[in-house]
């Protein structure tokens, strides 16, 4: 019995002594943390997407408090979150425009497939072997390397075509560099109308392997105001400096449906329209 007591008492004493030592050490060697950093980090979304250019939200919070970055650099924050952070730090939040990704291709598998591809299901690997299964050299390969890179689930792979959901996209740009065909661009979220084609080939050539390619017929150029749609060789593009209103899509009645409104494209409204 006494052996048990000795053990209990001696471990207890050791525990108390060590506890006091730890307490002293914690006081003497305490690392001062700016409480503002913790608070700012709390106000940030915590997605650690890296869209701001820093290694996660904690790193960004540190930079914001040190005034090396502004809260507006976070692409994920809603304007109200940014105002909250700015108010807390007593700085003025600058206005920022939300940007979203656009995959400039509308050629899904049913429109463009040419051959069987049985290799690695990753766009950057597929592009090395005959450019994947689709007939277009410039189009979406459809294995979803961009979707995999998206931390917000904003890119859907639908019938071997990457489709961005603009309401889910926060503009972190993680997807942009993953596309081996450089199809993804960042555009202001307020602009709805895009040409979903990025092939510089001649219209007739494009039509042989893709039903939804832009053939540069210029219908959309005619119904929009001057300068809103730009013709670049055999391809028309939206002028993002002077964008056309979303109504242009309906007015132009694009024969190949390459001209689309982003939200309707995400909802699948154009599927099977082009002949």
């Amino acid at each position, binding site marked *: 019995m006494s052996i048990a007591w000795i053990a209990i008492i001696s471990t207890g004493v050791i525990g108390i002594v060590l506890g006091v030592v730890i307490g002293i050490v914690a006081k003497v060697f305490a690392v001062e943390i700016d409480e503002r950093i913790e608070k700012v980090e709390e106000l940030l979304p915590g997605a650690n997407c890296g869209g701001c250019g820093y290694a996660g939200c904690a790193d960004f919070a540190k930079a914001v408090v040190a005034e090396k970055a502004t809260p507006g650099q976070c692409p994920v924050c809603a304007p109200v979150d940014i105002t909250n952070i700015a108010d807390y730090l007593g700085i003025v939040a600058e206005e920022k425009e939300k940007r979203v990704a656009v995959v400039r291709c509308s050629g899904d598998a049913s429109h463009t497939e*040419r*051959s*069987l591809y*049985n*290799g*690695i299901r*990753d766009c*950057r*690997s597929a592009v*090395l*072997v*005959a*450019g*994947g299964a689709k*007939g277009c*050299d410039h189009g979406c390969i459809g294995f979803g390397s961009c979707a995999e890179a998206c931390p917000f689930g904003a890119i859907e792979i639908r019938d071997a075509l990457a489709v961005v959901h603009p309401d889910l996209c926060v503009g972190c740009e993680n997807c942009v560099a993953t596309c081996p065909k450089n199809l993804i661009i960042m555009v202001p979220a307020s602009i709805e109308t895009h040409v979903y084609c990025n092939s510089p*080939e001649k219209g007739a050539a494009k039509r042989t392997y893709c039903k939804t390619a832009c053939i540069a017929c210029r219908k959309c150029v005619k119904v929009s105001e001057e300068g809103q749609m730009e013709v670049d060789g055999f391809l028309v593009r939206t002028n993002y400096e002077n964008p056309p209103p979303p109504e242009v899509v309906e007015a132009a009645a694009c024969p190949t449906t390459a001209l689309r409104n982003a939200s309707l494209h995400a909802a699948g409204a154009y599927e099977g329209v082009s002949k």
Partner: protein
Amino acid sequence: MSDKPRKFKGGVHPNDSKALSASKPIQQAPLLESYKVIMHQNIGAPPELVVKKGDTVKKGTLLAKASGFVSVPLHAPTSGTIKSIDKCPGPTGISVPAIEIAADGEDAWESPFEPIADWMNADPAGLRQRICDAGIVGMGGAGFPTHVKLSPPEDKTIDTLILNGAECEPYLTADHRLMLEHAEEVVLGAAISARILGLKSAVIGIEENKPDAIEKLESVAGKYNITVQSLPVNYPQGAERQLIYAITGREVPIGKLPMDVGCVVQNIATVIAIAEAVVKGLPSIERVATVTGKPVVNPGNWRLRIGTPVAKVLELAGGISEQPAKLLLGGPMMGIAQSSLDVTVMKNTSGVLLIAADEVSLYTSEPCIRCGRCVDCCPMQILPATISQAVENKRFDWAEKLNVMACIECGSCSYVCPSHRPLNQHFKRAKVEIQAGLRKKS
């Protein structure tokens, strides 16, 4: 015959299927109505176009001139007019610029080169320039400009010239037929290459499954002090590093070139092109390729002009007897699958191969079971299993540490993998990503 050749570590023994075409003599393909010559047929800088749409050209007229040291010119395969300069499907599946020539049927030569009959006393620099002007590239598959290979830097001493007659790739018999039917040109081309390199001798390495070719070359090789070395049958015996090891016992260190161990390796078809360019003054406008496979009615070896569409090549061989599942340019191990019959013959197209549906199956890649077969067969002695896992996890830095850059893409590991893992494709991806990373850094 010199001493017993060494056997390199690793390698595989696929069914060689060479019997389909090995006994068929080389046939000259008839003149077609049009040819589509792909502009960029060499490793290095693409040549610069010197003709325009509507121009009249003769057979051998310069179409594009070399745009740098590592670049070769391109010549017209026949006489006619330039119909268009547009795009055509390239061998890698991406459309590439090509020159379409409508033949006038006369096939009239423009002789741009003076034959160098006295090559034995000619200036090596002049011979090298001729090889460059003739547009000769490595015809075994890589398409590396031959004059660059024959211009070792001054600080490198070359003591061995090796001719690659291994033809280890299954199905292909073009080099075999060339050695049988053009043995004199082979040794002549070898002697000219040796002269350029300042050597007095050369070695021809031939796999021992071609005894007739060994015998034929031995009968003519003595003239220029050339020896013939028979090699054990083992894929990839014809890979540069493996061939050098088998013949000289030297190992080319990773990241170094054959010239660093004093060797230059030339393909059989390439040295024949060298002989023709020097002695006859002919540019590189045709090549011998094997047209083969179970679905081909009449497999054989054909002398094809560059720019011949594959659809026409298959017509020459009697068409197809059954629907093929796969079309490859090159052999089954390293050839590239095609999605179009419009792709055309290039200077480095060693074969057109069709595979029947019952010869292939669709595999799904399964997880690695760590059996180590790929490690046993890798001729470069790297670790395919481990590297492929690094690549799957996008850890290209690990792959680089594991020497993925040493991979010669011979496909032996993919061939033996019981889990049907696309190992070779993983390594291709890793190499591209690592090179892109290096470019970004510099």
